């Protein structure tokens, strides 16, 4: 497989009052096109920081970020972030408008008609199974539904890479499992690369093809584990639990 997104020797530290605290040390990672990869680690291991660097929200102190061998420095529509925070939706826009926001942003240069924009937005709302809620305002939806709208918006930008920063971290476990299943279905249908940050081992095992294990202080990659289980995965299967235990001991 040809390397698509490449992280080379990335280092990042934060200035605190007393000292300079390294957050990421020597991160080297190659991500393949259309891959579903999770970055798994305890809180404070710098996995979110790493995701922000990939998104272009934050700059690495040293090291390089390459996509198809080209340097990336700024945030862009090819790497859309899905946040954990419910606030990421705009409360003054209806569900459908929140999604068309992304369609419009990504289609800035190729004139789409209003109908085409709406059609596209509806397609993605359909994928997250919320087409019946298009005229609701975000505050009228449950947390899980809000994250589905946000997911639809992220999809609607039609960027090649989707970055997800613990997007299901704030919903109850039942809903989380539903959302995970939905995400896998969508990933299988759409051609997208997903980089998914989580501290939940089961989530990583359920979702991704590869799992990047990270450790605390300084944030370093310990190991990259291949997960060859077939989709759709069953949480009660023997394989699932074996991998879970294997990862748990590593962390």
């Amino acid at each position: 497989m040809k390397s698509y997104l490449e992280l080379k020797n990335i280092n990042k530290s934060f200035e605190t009052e007393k000292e300079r605290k390294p957050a990421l040390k020597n991160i080297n990672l190659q991500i393949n096109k259309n891959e579903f990869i999770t970055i798994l680690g305890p809180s404070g291991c710098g996995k979110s920081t790493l995701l922000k660097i990939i998104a272009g929200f934050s700059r690495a102190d040293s090291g390089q970020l390459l996509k198809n061998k080209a340097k990336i420095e700024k945030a862009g529509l090819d790497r859309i972030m899905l946040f954990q925070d419910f606030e990421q939706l705009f409360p003054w826009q209806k569900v459908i408008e929140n999604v068309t926001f992304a369609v419009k942003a990504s289609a800035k240069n190729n004139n789409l008609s209003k109908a085409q924009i709406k059609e596209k937005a509806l397609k993605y709302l359909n994928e997250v199974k919320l087409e019946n809620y298009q005229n609701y305002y975000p505050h009228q939806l449950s947390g899980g539904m809000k994250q589905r709208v946000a997911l639809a918006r992220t999809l609607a930008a039609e960027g090649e890479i989707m970055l997800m920063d613990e997007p299901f971290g704030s919903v109850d476990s039942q809903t989380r499992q539903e959302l995970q299943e939905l995400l896998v279905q969508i990933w299988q249908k759409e051609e997208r690369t997903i980089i998914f940050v989580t501290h939940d081992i089961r989530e990583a095992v359920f979702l991704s093809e590869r799992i990047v294990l990270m450790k605390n202080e300084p944030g370093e990659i310990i190991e990259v584990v291949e997960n060859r289980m077939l989709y759709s995965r069953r949480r009660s299967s023997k394989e699932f639990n074996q991998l879970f235990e294997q990862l748990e001991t590593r962390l």
Partner: protein
Amino acid sequence: MGNKYRQRLIWITILALIWQLTALSGIFSEMIFPGLDQIFLALIKSFKDGTLIKQIGFSLSIIIQGLFLATAAALILALTAYFSKSAAGLIDTLTALAHPLPGIALMPLILIWFGSGRTAILIVIIHSVLWPLILNLSTGFNSIPDIYTLIARNYRLNKLEFMFKILIPASLPYFISGLKIAWARSWRALISAEMLFGAINSLGGLGWFIFQKRVFFDLPGVFAGIIAIIVIGVTVEDFIFKKIEVKTVKKWGMLK
């Protein structure tokens, strides 16, 4: 909500009754304490001969103009302050200096610079509206969630798009409450300015109406003017602003 208005109605009725009884009892002379019948006769008379309508029209036209100009200026200044640190310093300093200053205190200066006509009143209104609006807008702009700025960068919005698609709608609750303060302040400033500046007879506002009644020693007329001021104030605050809130921030769940 209905309960609030019923309570109000009950109290207004009771207070009106007490007023009327006091007036009828003759404790105070009619000149100091006119009965409601006289006040309403004066009100009806002023409405019929068209003076009150004309004065209300004048007051409202000037206040709407003032609010519009001040809002536009406040938006431009607050946005400039949001995007430029050095401008923010200047605007912040100006606001801190000018905000606590009642417009009426500026009257001598305004008289010298702008004369005593419509422009002067407009300046007083703009002064009383501009600073609280800038304060509220700036607070609103600075308290939008960080996530919105990240989204704006992520979706490659330019500054204009960011302003109109995110910044302004996201700070709408602050904007509206700023407008409410602005309205209350400008309404007060308007009436006092009209009373103080003096005006051209044919072109005076409600403040002038009261002043004129006062000069001709017509106390029921003064009360009629006061009632008109109250009714307009309450209508705008309780109905127009409430309606705007219901149609926007309340509907969006941005305001409980």
